[in-house]
């Protein structure tokens, strides 16, 4: 019996090939896209899951306040806070400072081989009580209690030693003064992709205190309440109440203010599990995800799959009604309706199983592009994931039952007499439902399209905006590992001897690098004026050639006076910084004295605001301090030539002057554009979703159109006999759909407006909303609607009417 149902179901699917194809494609794309997105969302939500204690680990961050409002949220903390908390707050049992050394990277040397180490952190011993990094080699006893210890990851070990058992090896950090030596005491597994804090190498925090030069340079003293430059993690005692911890922390803050250790600042806690999706502070160790976008994506994916089901239900119901009539005419109502219902369930299950198979194929095909597009790790396990299969199974079974049940129920809700007469297909209920579903689908599609248009335009706008700084045709060379400053003028002169090189300059950082590459200090004020508010000022070190090389406009004053004394205490500030000192015009600022870091500084000049970071962020209040040492970056600006030749040229000069140092470089414009990557990715994901949504909606419409055209075939024939032209018929058939889509427009435009407004809030510099952002997508949708229904309508409209009348 069951076999029979399957046989009939199969035949019926094969018989209406077009319809089956529409259903299959619609359902399969819906399944596939939802499966992929759910995996992505799951990954984004899995951050820190590999650390069993993650629920008890809290990162402390610093809010800079003006009165009661927060002006900046900084993710880094003063070094004494950890030890003080452990002794004063009972809920805290351990702490670890995590200090990022050598942003963006640090020179290292193994025997004669020199290289640049990225993601290098100094951490306290208790780091390993919070984060799950078991040693593959080495002993955990007294780990990181002493200076000059190092742990490297498996792949770092393999990269530089070609083996993992490297305990006892020495890694040297070359310096102009005395080199510093690290003993490798352990090798641990690589940081998982789903942690906010990833590293290649860790060194023991006591090194920061024991080494005189490090102490001087980084200032991680136990009593340093001036520089908040390390991340601070604390572990709460077992069963600690987080609310209670928050109150304890508030009391702690109060004590610090009373002790005059902090002012206009507040230390707050943040569960590490919340960092990846919810934290948007300055100086994060990596760009975090965004919970809102994640859930938005999930929502859209669900809508797409619902749309696919809706299409199926829609078409299946139409078909059900047709068959009911046929059955009714045969006057065997009683048993056959039940049979018919069962038949629908079987058919629906069958098509869902087929769609599931097709979806697997689609996922398999699209896997690698999906991974790179969404930024998931390349070795991401997709098919080996249990949720993947559970979800697919649920889609098939639940979807199959639900979508099969609906037409079955519709059938039984009609009295046999109406079924016989065949007039229920025009029942208000049916029409309303069918239209409602189409309206819903197109509303989503229009919302997505408008969103895509806006995202695109905003990104184009940011790219095209005048940065106020010229990032083109510049190659950035990272500082050599040793004897840096000494030979710099030789290096510079040798570069400038090339006629195609415009200029060479030194700086601590260049535009486009993460804000973490800038130093920050809140307490910078005009000498003699006690500030009422504290703001973070962003400090960078540059030489005299930096401002002209980057074409940054000087508004008042002059560039640095090289050679005069004290040349060290000269600064150039930007307009944004002036706002915080209540200085009205750039001219007023020139020669004013600033006090910070226990020194007095003279404002030599004021530059126009430029986008140190992408226009997503507001202008930073910047202080440029004069510095002539090749410590970080040298910018080499060309006036033409191919990038490959230029790199070769710089490399040749570099190797001649610094024969032992590794040559490391990047292009300034590329580095700058990296800032757009996350948004670009968002845009790409969006475009794909939109495309799928359009596909599913249009497939649904095509199905509906063929259904309604089929229903009206005879009517069209009559109208043509009476005198309707092809155009008359086309208009007649399209009118209904156009009206329906009009309703979608009415529904979607206000929603889109709100969504866009909300999204644009993420950007400091943004486009103005204009009408075309809405009109163009709407026109596009109408075009698509007419196109997809025309596949059916045109054929019917030009057909000879006697054919359709004959079939009566």
């Amino acid at each position, binding site marked *: 019996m069951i076999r029979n149902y399957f046989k009939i179901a199969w035949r019926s699917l094969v018989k209406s090939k077009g319809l089956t194809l529409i259903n299959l494609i619609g359902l399969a794309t819906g399944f596939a896209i939802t499966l992929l997105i759910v995996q992505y969302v799951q990954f984004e939500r899995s951050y820190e899951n590999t650390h069993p204690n993650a629920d008890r680990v809290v990162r402390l961050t610093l809010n800079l306040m003006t009165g009661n409002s927060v002006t900046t949220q900084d993710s880094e903390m003063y070094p004494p806070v950890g030890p003080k908390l452990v002794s004063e707050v009972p809920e805290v049992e351990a702490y670890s400072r995590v200090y990022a050394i050598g942003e963006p990277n640090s020179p290292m040397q193994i025997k004669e081989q020199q290289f640049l180490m990225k993601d290098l952190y100094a951490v306290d011993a208790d780091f390993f009580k919070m984060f799950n990094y078991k040693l593959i080699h080495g002993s955990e006893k007294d780990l990181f209690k002493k200076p000059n210890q190092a742990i490297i990851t498996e792949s770092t070990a393999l990269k530089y030693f070609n083996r993992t058992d490297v305990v006892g090896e020495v890694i040297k950090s070359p310096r102009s003064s005395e080199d510093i030596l690290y003993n490798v005491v352990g090798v641990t597994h690589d940081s998982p992709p789903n942690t906010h804090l990833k590293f290649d190498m860790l060194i023991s925090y006591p090194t920061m205190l024991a080494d005189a030069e490090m102490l001087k340079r980084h200032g991680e003293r136990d009593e340093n309440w001036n520089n908040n430059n390390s991340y601070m993690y604390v572990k709460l005692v077992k069963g600690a109440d987080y609310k209670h911890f928050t109150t304890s922390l508030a009391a702690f803050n109060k004590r610090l203010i009373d002790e005059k250790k902090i002012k206009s600042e507040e230390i707050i806690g943040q569960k590490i599990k919340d960092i990846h999706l919810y934290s948007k502070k300055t100086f994060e160790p990596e760009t975090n995800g965004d919970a809102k976008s994640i859930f938005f994506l999930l929502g859209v994916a669900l809508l797409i799959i619902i749309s696919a089901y809706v299409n199926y239900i829609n078409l299946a119901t139409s078909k059900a009604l047709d068959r009911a009539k046929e059955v009714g005419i045969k006057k065997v109502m009683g048993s056959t309706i039940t049979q018919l219902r069962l038949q629908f369930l079987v058919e629906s299950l069958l098509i869902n199983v087929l769609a599931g198979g097709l979806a697997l194929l689609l996922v398999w095909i699209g896997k690698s592009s999906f991974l790179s597009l969404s930024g998931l790790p390349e070795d991401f396990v997709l098919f080996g994931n249990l949720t993947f299969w559970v979800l697919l199974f649920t889609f098939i079974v639940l979807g199959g039952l639900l979508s099969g049940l609906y037409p079955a129920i519709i059938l039984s809700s009609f009295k046999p007499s109406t079924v016989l007469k065949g007039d229920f297909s025009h029942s208000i209920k049916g029409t309303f439902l069918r239209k409602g579903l189409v309206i819903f689908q197109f509303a989503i599609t229009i919302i997505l399209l408008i969103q895509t248009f806006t995202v695109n335009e905003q990104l184009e706008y940011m790219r095209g905006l005048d940065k106020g700084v010229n990032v083109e045709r510049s190659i950035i060379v990272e500082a050599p590992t040793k004897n840096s400053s000494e030979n710099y003028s030789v290096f510079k002169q040798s570069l400038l001897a090339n006629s195609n090189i415009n200029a060479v300059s030194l700086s601590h950082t260049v535009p486009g690098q993460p804000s973490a590459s800038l130093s920050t200090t809140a307490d910078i004020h005009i000498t003699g004026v006690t500030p009422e508010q504290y703001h973070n000022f962003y400090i960078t070190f540059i030489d005299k050639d930096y401002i002209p090389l980057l074409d940054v406009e000087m508004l008042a004053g002059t560039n640095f006076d090289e050679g005069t004394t004290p040349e060290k205490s000269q600064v150039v500030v930007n307009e944004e910084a002036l706002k915080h000192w209540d200085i009205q015009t750039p001219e007023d600022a020139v020669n004013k004295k600033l006090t910070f870091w226990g020194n007095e500084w003279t404002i030599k000049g004021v530059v126009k605001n430029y986008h140190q970071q992408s226009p997503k962020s507001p202008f930073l209040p910047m202080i440029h301090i004069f510095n002539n040492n090749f410590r970080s970056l040298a910018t080499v600006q060309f006036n033409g030539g191919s990038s490959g030749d230029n790199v070769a040229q710089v490399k040749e000069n570099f190797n001649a002057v610094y024969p032992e140092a590794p040559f490391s470089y990047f292009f300034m414009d590329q580095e700058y554009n990296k800032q757009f990557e996350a948004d670009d990715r968002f845009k790409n994901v969006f475009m794909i979703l939109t495309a799928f949504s359009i596909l599913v909606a249009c497939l649904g419409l095509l199905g509906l159109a063929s259904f309604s055209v089929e229903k009206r075939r005879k009517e069209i024939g009559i109208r043509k006999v009476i*005198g309707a032209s092809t155009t008359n018929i086309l208009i007649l058939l399209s009118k209904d759909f156009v009206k329906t889509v009009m309703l979608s427009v009415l529904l979607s435009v206000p929603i889109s407006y709100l969504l866009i407004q909300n999204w644009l809030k993420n950007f400091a510099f943004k486009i103005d909303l204009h009408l075309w952002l809405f009109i163009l997508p709407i026109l596009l949708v109408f075009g698509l609607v007419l196109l997809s229904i025309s596949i059916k309508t045109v054929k019917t409209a030009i057909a000879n009417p006697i054919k359709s*009348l004959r079939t009566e």
Partner: protein
Amino acid sequence: MIKITNLEKYYKTEEVQTIALNKLSFEVKQGEFAAIMGPSGCGKSTLLNILGLLDDPDGGSYLFNGIEVAGYNERKRAQLRKHNIGFVFQSFNLIDELSVFENVELPLIYTGVKPAERKERVHAVLEKMQIMHRRKHFPQQLSGGQQQRVAVARAVVNNPKLILADEPTGNLDSSNGNEVMDLLTELNEAGTTIIMVTHSEHDAKFSHRIIRMLDGQKVTENVLV
């Protein structure tokens, strides 16, 4: 008004070729009422479709009001058709979703008549067909005879010169059938040319002339008046 000479029509299906009309010739004068009779499958409906400009012949000549229309394309035929020809079918062919009034109004819409005039003309013709009181009803709420009267009303609302009727009484009982035949006679007396296909000798007697067909050819012609 209508003159066909050696009219031919073939239907090709998979392997067999059917000759539906085989060098058929006859003439129908303005104001005439002609009946076409013949066994099932002899080509009567095919002929009517060609006369009604719904289909084109494969050979021969068709003069409509002295103009050769055998080579007309679809667009030209449709143009000529909607101003000059009205159709009445055996199965009424009313549009279920439209009311009586709307069904009858339809041809006027397609010939571009203004709404006010449309209403007037539809009402006039509904009066004449004695179904004015049913104008708001839908086809399924009417009896067969009433439906056919609506169909006739729709066929004549544009004042066509020619009415083609394909077994107009085929689905009706004899009294309803007679009513429809009376209507057609009236229209003919008012000047409309009528060509009617019928299987009923009784109905054929309402006409002036009976053209008898067999296998796509004319066999005899009986002039009744």
